[in-house]
């Protein structure tokens, strides 16, 4: 769809969904991880790992599906490092997550450098070969529906996957025994252990799941939305995901609403930045004197404000961020 043929509301809604998709994907994984008591602030690094893995493998093989699969596996592999240090090694989750972000930053830059050198030495372009990146996938006649068609049925493949995954995880968390175990792991691992549940094994699985989701979110950015890789291309979206999980009060519905809200404000600020020059409305022209930084801040300020209001009186999983079993101090 050419944006020039869309009305502004449809365009904004479609942009909102596109911008929210990687946040939803990574958010689902982070939500599950946090429900089990593990806060993975290395989600930004996991997403970046997914970006580079997807791009280089899709670029080298010419197959986007291989890139996507590698991104998920790479996300899980790096998440395994985090799980090994924080769950098995009981290291501090915040410090380990920070180290993970730095590791991913250095590692992705190094892999990107190696990839570029290799392609150039073989007289190959570093751009994705034709067909290696994904385009939007229209869902038959549904894509021709007014408004809803372009917004929900003409999106990238991972959007549909994210919707299905969100629904599945919501059902599991809300209605199944597995969901009860996941929630109990974050609130009372002692009880879980008393019931014979292997706390650390379950937490490992949750962190690996989060890694896979974040890897897929990275693949979305590099081989679906843009067909490009740039160092630091996640631009802090992993940290936004952390905030959105809190914003959503550790619920799937809240998380998705938060992602859509953040995506909407971001899309709106970009359209406003343009419309203040191109619109016929005087009120928008008056915005020309507003520094562009104000527009750029809008999504973050709005998210912060909403976070401050909505996260009150909801501390989240009681054992969030604490190792298991907890350290005991001998007097």
């Amino acid at each position, binding site marked *: 769809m050419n*944006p020039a*043929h869309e009305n502004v509301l449809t*365009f904004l809604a479609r942009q909102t969904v596109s911008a929210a998709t990687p946040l939803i994907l990574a958010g689902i994984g982070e939500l599950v991880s946090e429900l089990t008591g593990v806060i993975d602030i290395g989600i930004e690094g996991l997403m970046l790992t997914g970006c580079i893995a997807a791009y280089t493998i899709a670029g080298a093989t010419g197959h986007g599906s291989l890139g996507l699969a590698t991104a998920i596996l790479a996300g899980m592999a790096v998440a395994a490092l985090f799980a090994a240090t924080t769950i098995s090694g009981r290291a501090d989750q915040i410090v380990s997550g920070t180290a993970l972000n730095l590791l991913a930053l250095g590692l992705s830059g190094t*892999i990107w450098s190696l990839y570029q050198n290799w392609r150039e030495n073989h007289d190959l372009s570093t751009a994705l070969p034709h067909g290696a990146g994904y385009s939007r996938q229209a869902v038959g006649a549904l894509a021709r529906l007014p408004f809803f068609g372009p917004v929900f049925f003409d999106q990238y493949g991972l959007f549909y996957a994210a919707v299905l995954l969100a629904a599945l995880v919501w059902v599991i968390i809300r209605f199944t025994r597995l969901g009860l175990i996941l929630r109990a792991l974050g609130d009372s691992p002692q009880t879980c252990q008393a019931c014979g549940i292997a706390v650390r094994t379950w937490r490992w699985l949750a962190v690996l799941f989060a890694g896979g989701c974040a890897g897929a979110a990275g693949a979305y950015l590099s081989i679906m939305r843009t*067909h*490009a890789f740039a*160092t630091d291309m996640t*631009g802090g979206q992993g940290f936004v995901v952390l905030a959105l999980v809190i914003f959503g009060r550790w619920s799937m519905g809240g998380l998705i609403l938060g992602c859509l809200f953040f995506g909407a404000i971001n899309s709106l600020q970009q359209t406003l930045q343009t419309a203040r*020059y*191109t619109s016929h409305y005087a009120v928008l022209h008056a915005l020309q004197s507003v520094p562009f930084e104000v527009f750029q801040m809008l999504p973050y300020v709005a998210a912060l404000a909403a976070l401050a209001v909505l996260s009150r009186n909801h501390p989240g999983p009681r054992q969030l961020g604490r190792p298991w079993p907890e350290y005991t101090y001998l007097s």
Partner: protein
Amino acid sequence: MKYVRSPATSYGSAALFLFLFGLSAIAGGVPMARAEMKIALICSGSITDGGWNQQGRDAIIKVGKELHAHVSVVERVSPVRAVNVMRDYAMEHYSLVIGHGYEFLIPATEAAAQGEGTHFAVSGVGKAEPNIATLDFNISEPSYQLGVLAAMLSKTGKLGFIGGEAIPPVVAGYRGFVAGARSVNPHITVAQAYTSWDQPALSKSQAEAFIQQGIDVIYQNVDAADRGVFEAVKAADKNLGPHGHPVYVFGSNRNQNNNSTCGQYTPASVVIRLDKAFLQVAREVEQHRFQPGVIRENMRNHVCVLVLNPKLKGTVITKAMRVAVAKAGRELLAGKILIPAE
């Protein structure tokens, strides 16, 4: 010849440091044989960014080969750390240290006050400071020509400019672009927006917002995020519709006319020939002619130039457009056109 140090690895734990350093060594190579002249380039971002920093690395390597000099490139140096890095190079008797970006002006000034025998230069800034040379890339002139071309290409009378950050050299490009466009059509609209240097997704959605608002010519200066803009233009041009007209995009800093994403819709690029600029300073150092002060890099010395896409000449770029662009170039060189400072 290059030796890449990757300071990003220095914050982590010892294990991570060793791991990354090992990989960096594989990627970046090792110091080459001893050479008489030693040149260092300090970059604020990643040298694999596909933009400004990578262009600087490529340019300095080219200079190294030309002068048979030893070259060292260090990436991700914050202005706060830059003074120490520059002093380290001075202690290692480097002949020339170039801070690649306006943010290195103050650190270079401080380091130059103590760096005996080492010469310091800073690229992308036009301010004179004691003991250092600054390379002022005036892209406003070729951007003016670009504006002329854009105004003639546009069917909607709406142009857009996307920058990575509102830093002086980028804003100068925007000013030139607006002045050039308004010289053809005084009522033309030029929207401006700033996104990021390294977030293609953000620059793509900004370009899509431009296109949705009827903008049909986009001038981008977003470095590594450029692919996002190209992708947006490609997608728009793929779905032109029965009465649609194409959206065009301009390249910046490097010649991006043959980019693989939408080269057929990239009529021109504003090019900064960093290798030429760096070589000039390095030669001055080599021949003991180095003079502190501002070096004006512009159309006159062929460092900042407009490059038209030869494949689009005669089709997208008509003869009238070529004549108008060339005329604007002549008038700029003759000093008949002055681009407003603000």
